């Protein structure tokens, strides 16, 4: 035994505590104590304990209380400091800390109510955002600098990654289609496939998804961090309107940059298809461009672009809204950022589907 020693003296039991009674040993002490078989009356001798700290003393108090409840005990061999610490800590041992217990159904219910509340809050946020529109774009109130900054980071900053993704998507589509078209000897139709699918669907969608991942998340994280550091409260207390300062510059920045990015993605995507067609089907560049000129009506390109401001507003609104939902801890920044990206990508796809239905119904 490392921490205890039991001796029988006449009709008395002597429990000798020894060793280091410190925090790193407290669990071993407890284990050893459980193995002890003690009889009463009992004398506890602590004079051989050669080091103690508050956790050790707390452990001693626990043991002391347990034994005291069972029979007559006496403690000997302590010094002044140990006594002081004992006296200081003894009353704390009976303190009960509150525990929040949660039951599975509670959590389900809470999550459901939370979801519904968030939906209502989102409606309120939307309403307030649009109510502040005219206020925010008054030249006096409009935040040009912020908007330009966000155009730069969300727009210009995204050029490279958008070029890369749309090039690859254009190429992949061309490769996939070329296999099928070649079977029918309809090689040249690859140009129709690429041109129309990229401009109408792929470029707007891919661009929106990349921007949702890049900028939607950063809007949430920025605004969320500002909320935690009470910057938002500071702004409000100075009479700065958060919709004019934070929300509208971001919405407008995306509404301006997403169409431009999509236009860029159109070009790069078609270029990706052009390269793939050349290698896979041997269609020369001039053949491709000539055919493209014939079949790709401006209408397709415009129908693709029309969708993008809607996507942009969705991403920016969700990003900002989720940022304001961040509560006072750092974990919720992560949760809200995740939710922001998931929601905005889902909504972008949902809106895209809606547009498809509308376009089909209109026969365009």
């Amino acid at each position: 035994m490392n921490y205890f020693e039991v001796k029988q003296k006449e009709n008395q039991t002597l429990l000798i505590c020894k060793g280091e009674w410190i925090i790193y040993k407290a669990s071993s002490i407890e284990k050893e104590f459980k193995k002890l078989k003690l009889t009463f009356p009992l004398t506890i001798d602590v004079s051989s304990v050669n080091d103690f700290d508050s956790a050790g003393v707390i452990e001693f108090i626990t043991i002391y209380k347990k034994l005291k409840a069972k029979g007559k005990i006496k403690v000997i061999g302590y010094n002044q400091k140990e006594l002081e610490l004992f006296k200081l800590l003894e009353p704390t041992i009976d303190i009960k800390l509150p525990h929040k217990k949660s039951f599975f159904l509670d959590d389900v219910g809470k999550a459901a109510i939370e979801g519904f509340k968030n939906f209502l809050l989102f409606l309120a946020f939307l309403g307030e955002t649009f109510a502040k529109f005219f206020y925010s774009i008054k030249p006096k109130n409009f935040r040009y600098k912020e908007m330009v900054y966000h155009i730069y980071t969300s727009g210009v900053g995204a050029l490279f990654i958008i070029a890369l993704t749309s090039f690859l998507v254009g190429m992949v589509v061309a490769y996939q289609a070329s296999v099928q078209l070649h079977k029918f000897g309809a090689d040249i139709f690859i140009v129709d496939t690429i041109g129309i699918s990229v401009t109408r669907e792929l470029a707007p969608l891919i661009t929106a998804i990349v921007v949702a991942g890049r900028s939607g998340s950063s809007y949430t994280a920025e605004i969320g961090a500002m909320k935690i550091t009470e910057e938002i409260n500071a702004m409000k207390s100075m009479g700065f309107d958060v919709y004019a300062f934070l929300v509208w510059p971001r919405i407008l920045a995306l509404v301006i940059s997403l169409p431009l990015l999509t236009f860029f993605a159109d070009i790069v995507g078609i270029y990706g298809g052009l390269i793939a067609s050349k290698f896979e089907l041997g269609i020369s560049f001039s053949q491709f461009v000539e055919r493209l000129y014939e079949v790709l009506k401006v209408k397709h390109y415009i129908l693709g672009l029309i969708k993008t401001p809607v996507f942009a507003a969705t991403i920016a609104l969700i990003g900002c809204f989720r940022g304001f939902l961040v509560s006072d801890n750092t974990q919720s920044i992560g949760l809200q950022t995740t939710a922001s990206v998931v929601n905005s990508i889902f909504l972008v796809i949902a809106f895209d589907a809606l547009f498809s239905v509308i376009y089909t119904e209109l026969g365009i």
Partner: protein
Amino acid sequence: MKKPIIKVQDLVTKFGDRVIHDHISFEIFEKEIFGILGGSGSGKSVLVKEIIMLLRPFSGKISIFGKDISTLSFKEAQELKRSWGVLFQFGALFTSLTVAQNIAMPLIEYTTLSKKQIEHIVAAKLELVGLKPFVASMYPSELSGGMIKRAALARALALDPKLLFLDEPTSGLDPVGARNFDKLIQELRDILDLTVVMITHDLDSIFTILDRMLLIADKKIAAYGTIKEVLASTHPFVEEFFKNDFVKKRYLKELNV
């Protein structure tokens, strides 16, 4: 002769071209309450951050328990970091954990204590720093500034460190709370043989609980030693800090000793 626990030699700190500390040296002895004083922005927090290995000094040597901290292995550094508790100027509690979880965190990470034992220790530390049990289940964002300070002190004390660093522990506390805090620190030092290094502007703390202190002004040490020795200095900053009418009236007794 008392044993120095922390020894700082020829320390120079720079941020870019800006020099914060210009060749400062001092020692902190075992079981003393050592104060770091100085005006705002004089580099007190930075000095402590260098000692606790969060920042690297530009040059100079810092030894703790006789070991140069710049040459420690990862394992030695981990061990050293467990032997001290730190109360940051702004609390720095983990915002996604409750107060009880904050205090329990180092215990869970570094010890094999049972749940019950951890609970006892958490309750004891809360009581020690003067927080009511119901605070245990609250989150840092729900606490007042003073409560954050106390909770952060409880966390710093969790592992029963031998060395305690406190960055302005009494700022943001009510006057009664501040004096109790001072008393608590003194009590802990006496009972648990702690060495306490505290940054403070609080005159009451300076006059009542500090054993020795260090005054940083103009990138250098303006005064160093017991309150008596510091008051004997004629450095302009000491004059300004201690020998104005307010201090003279209020701490007449202490000044005359």
